[in-house]
């Protein structure tokens, strides 16, 4: 966990939509982010708080044959770059003067992606000084319950005052409304 400054660990190399970006992490990077961990990238609206949604290291050979070399470099960089890691990062909201859980402007290509310190993560999850994870409900379908459970585990540490509520939310996600 990063307690101190917001440390840069990669850069955006592709933007699928205002929420979803592909981040390249150089092989020499000392930081290997896990799914469910938080990251941040600046946009013109403020700091886009993101979560690591997935990692891609596979070589989908069946696709490689369909793309030219130039296109591969652009769309499937991991096909040709076997040293770097490629992370799918999902933007949860924008942290500026206040918190907005809707992103209207995507960050730029090559924008540096940084780890977020505990203070920033807490700030993003406090609304009117009360713990808030309302993006869970908003993006549940997109992120999937497994990722939300991973985020919950992260938040248990970041938001200890909300641990009791997080346990209930975890139970709810695990049950998926079976009760």
């Amino acid at each position, binding site marked *: 966990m990063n307690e101190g400054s917001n440390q840069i660990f990669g850069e955006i190399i592709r933007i699928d939509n205002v929420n979803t970006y592909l981040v390249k992490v150089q092989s020499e990077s000392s930081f290997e982010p896990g799914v469910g961990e938080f990251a941040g990238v600046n946009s013109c609206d403020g700091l886009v708080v993101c979560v690591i949604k997935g990692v891609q290291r596979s070589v989908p050979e069946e696709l490689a044959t369909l793309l030219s070399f130039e296109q591969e470099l652009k769309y499937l960089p991991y096909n040709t770059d076997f040293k770097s890691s490629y992370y799918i990062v999902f933007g949860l909201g924008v942290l500026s003067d206040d918190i907005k859980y809707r992103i209207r402007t995507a960050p730029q290509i090559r924008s540096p992606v940084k780890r977020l310190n505990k203070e920033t993560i807490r700030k993003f999850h406090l609304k009117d000084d*009360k*713990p*808030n*994870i*309302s*993006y*869970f*409900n*908003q993006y549940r379908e997109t992120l999937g319950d497994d990722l939300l459970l991973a985020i919950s585990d992260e938040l248990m540490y970041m938001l200890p005052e*909300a641990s*009791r*509520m997080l346990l*209930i*939310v975890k*139970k*709810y996600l695990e*049950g998926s*409304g079976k*009760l």
Partner: protein
Amino acid sequence: MTVVGTVLTHSKDDFTFITKYQFKAGEFVCYLMNCNHILARVRHTEPLNDYPVEFLFDAVIDASDLAAFYGLDNNDYQYYRVSAAVVGYFDRTFNEFVNPRVKPLSGTKIELADAQILSDVNRVSKGEVGSAHIGTIMGTNSGAVLSVREMVSQHLSIIAATGAGKSYTVGVIVEELMSKNNMASVLIFDPHGEYSVLSDIQDNPAFCGDDYRPKVKIVKSDQIKIRVSDLRVADFISIMDDGSMTEKMKTFFKKAYDKLKKDDKRKIRNFTKNELQETIESLRDGKNESTIEAILWRYKIITAEKMFDDYQTIPLRSYFQPGQLTIIDVSNIGEWKQQLIADILLRHLFDARKGTDNEYYSEHKHPDRYIPYPTFIILEEAHRFAPQAGEAKSKNMLKTILSEGRKFGIGIAMVTQRPSKLDADSLSQCMTQITMRIINPSDQKQIEQSIESVSRDLIEELPSLARGQAIISGVAINTPVTVSIRSRCTAQIRGQSKDAPGIWRAYKLEQDSNTIVTAPSHKLNVGV
């Protein structure tokens, strides 16, 4: 009009709308269709959304706090899905509600039914001649007003579990009947002696008009006389037979009775106790001594009852007068006597009203049988007089009046707390129903089977009605309605539950304070 919701969907029987208002079953809403305001009755209300069940597990954390934390909008949990049944629009030509037979479209705005629309529920207006204002339509300030004309001519049932306000409601009905708007001729058959407080009516200015002041007559059981010649042979036998009367004895008694009756017709007068006794004795032929003696022994026991008289009988004209309430207090006599009195009273009244209407009786020739106005009888504990199972002396006469009484202006109000014990045919003849809280399932079933105008969803409401709330249905009102019964002008009727601990304590404390503490008779050892 205040918009309170929006139609969501509909089914064959009803439609649903979404609202933030907490509508109770039986309340009214309306919507606009083809320039008509369509009245609809709320059937049931349920929350539109439920919190995830996991959010409810923690005893400390509020579900609403969890919802806000997780990103659910708590506002979404403030809505209700209300199911309502279409009553219809009021057609002034036919003076009744007409069902449009089309359900409202999804998105139709639902409005609160205002006083103007709710007034269509009533057949008559408050204060009008022939009106009985008995309360307010539940959840509103609009009055519930019954048509007295329909109520008293086509019979009334008042059904309620004990403690639900049955006697109180009867009191309200009587107050309305005795008001200057109605000046009714009412008789209460009172097996518990609880209605004598209604004598307040004659001294209460609220019931008096310019030249009108109601009269209340209370008749105690020792004042009631039954002329022996008014008893039928079946009456005699049912009273005399304690299970030991043989067929032979019954046959001899019938022979004596018939012989005397034939003779009585010729003489055009009523027979006396002694005459019947002599006729029985005259049947002795030397072989039937023991049988005749056994009949006489039984006959003498019943004729020794003070109630049976040679000449006096129930004075109908004295009991039934417009603007008079007669309370027959039969609280201290047995059930068979109550049934007998009811039977003879009803039989005489039916005969009198039928004879008067058909002009057999005139004021000059038959002053005791001439009753040229409708009458209304309230039968408390009606299941005693027309039981579902078993027989009662009054049952047949009561059923006759319930089926034919309307033509001759005899109205009956059947008041009971056990409708399942009341004869179903009799109950079904009561065309106006005031039904209060009923918990017993068999009683509910009887109501459902006997009262056509009350729908299933209203029956389901019966156990949850509060004290003083009633569902009123039938011909005296345009559509079934849930009503909060109004406050009484007269004193509370006895019959309320006693405050036993309070009475015990008061009695004991008073007794103790009156006890003089005296010195003990034995010598005390004071250690000297």
